[in-house]
């Protein structure tokens, strides 16, 4: 209570910031998986003209500065931008879009390398056992599950710690688009260092708990 009294936040506001953080990051990683994994699988298994160009773009995007991603999304979502009529600027959906753009190349790139690290003959063996293309992909994903979980962890780690894009696209609106990282920036600017540190510890605890869960699944499967 003392902590809350020293700040301008109520307990329910603080809880809401945590929940918003979890909501946007989990939604964004879900979409990043839906976009990135099929892309990574396709890049690992298919040969097509222009594949090298796609790979180069993807590798560049893996290292894309989040603030650039945020700027591009904001420009697209601004009222005068091409997607302005969707009214997504300064919304949680806008943040999800930006974070998805940041995490997807990471998930795609690491998925591709997870599949490519499997023995090339494994693919032939699965087909030789009579698998359809879809059945083959399922088996390969199952075989690469440890590396795939690492891909998800890397993507999630990137977006939960992200601040620049979220600030630009979300606007850090109190009670709406404020997440832990943007709240930390704000409190630091205001000189509330202690509270910023508390928020930082909460953020780290969240990241730790989520990664602990994923690591548990990963290592349990390894043992099994």
């Amino acid at each position, binding site marked *: 209570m003392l902590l809350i009294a020293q700040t301008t936040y109520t307990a329910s506001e603080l809880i809401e910031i945590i929940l918003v953080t979890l909501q946007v990051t989990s939604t964004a990683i879900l979409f990043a998986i839906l976009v990135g994994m099929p892309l990574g699988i396709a890049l690992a298994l298919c040969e097509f003209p222009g594949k090298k160009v796609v790979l180069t773009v993807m590798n560049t995007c893996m290292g894309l500065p989040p603030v650039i991603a945020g700027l591009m999304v904001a420009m697209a979502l601004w009222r005068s931008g091409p997607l302005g009529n969707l009214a997504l600027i300064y919304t949680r959906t806008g943040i999800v879009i930006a974070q998805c753009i940041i995490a997807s190349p990471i998930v795609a790139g690491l998925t591709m390398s997870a599949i490519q690290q499997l*023995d090339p*003959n*494994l693919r*032939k*063996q699965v*087909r*030789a*056992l*009579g*698998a*359809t293309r879809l*059945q083959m992909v399922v*088996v390969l994903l*199952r*075989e690469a599950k440890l590396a795939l979980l690492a891909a998800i962890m890397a993507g999630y780690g990137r977006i939960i710690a992200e601040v620049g894009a979220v600030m630009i696209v979300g606007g850090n609106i109190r009670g709406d688009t404020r997440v832990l990282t943007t709240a930390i920036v704000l409190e630091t600017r205001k000189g509330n260092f202690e509270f910023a540190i508390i928020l930082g510890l909460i953020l780290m605890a969240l990241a730790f708990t989520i990664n602990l869960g994923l690591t548990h699944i990963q290592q349990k499967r390894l043992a*099994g």
Partner: protein
Amino acid sequence: MKKPALEGHEILFRYDSAFVLDVPLIEVFPRKVLGIIGPNGSGKSTLVKILSLLEKPLSGSVVIEGKAIGGGREALSVRRRFSVVFQQPLLFNRSVWENVATALKFRKESAESVRKKVDLWLRKLGIEQLAERPARTLSGGEARRVSLARSLVCDPKVFFMDEPFANLDQPTKENLMHELRSIIKESDIATLFVTHDREEAAVFSDTLSVMHEGKIVQSGTPVEIFSQPVSPFVADFVGVKNIFPAYAESNLNEQNIGLGSIRITAPTDKVGPVHVSIRPEDILLSRERVQSSARNVFRGRITHIRRRERTFYITVDIGIPLVCLVTKSSKEELGLKKNMEIWMLFKATSVHVI
């Protein structure tokens, strides 16, 4: 004779400009094992991949029951009548039982049918006690058995094996070969077996084809291949030790063949440049000159003695270095030593003229 279970017609494949696989005709028959032997890089594995529809040839066709197989769903349905095991067991990171059930689940067989078939094949290959073990914890021999059970469980019409006994110790290999051959002979499976191991090929196959640089250079029974190689390459590859370029001169009854500084006698109708091969086990050694019907008798000096398991290769220089195979007891009886003078003899019929 039964119709072939699988035929390959005019198969042509190119890796790059340097390697071309060119096989005009290959047939695999039910209940028979066709062995493909050849050195590494001769195209054996590529041929298996093409015939098992895992790789598309540049041209040519794979024919099943008189019908050339196309692509797409047709290829999948035909591939489901095949099974392939590769050099590595390539087991999935699941239990042994789940591994063996994989192909049946791909075919969406009922749970009851899957259970019955998996249990049956685990029993047939003597690995039922391993059913719950994670496949990645198995020894090499166990993993190979699981890989074979996983392939055979779906009752294939054609069974492809690409170096399936590689890296196994001798007793494990011999047991597995024996059991697998019994399984194949009891069923209607047509088997194509690829190896670079001549002994494996001789023991396991009903017929053999020798591949060299993408082409089948000789086909026949193992006895034919090993006793009558058609080229110096085949002779060398199947392990004929004494193979020499020679010149056959015309003679009414038998040929006198000039072999370096010596002349030997052999029954052949060939005249001119030839190769001759003499199997080491067909050459006799003696301390004294013996009276015999053998037409080729020479005296020479032992230059090398090399041990090979329970036998010895003795190289005797008679103007050319001829290798003879003797048992340990013969070696001791004759007191064979390096630089010792010795008589050797072999029949004219022991000389194979290529």
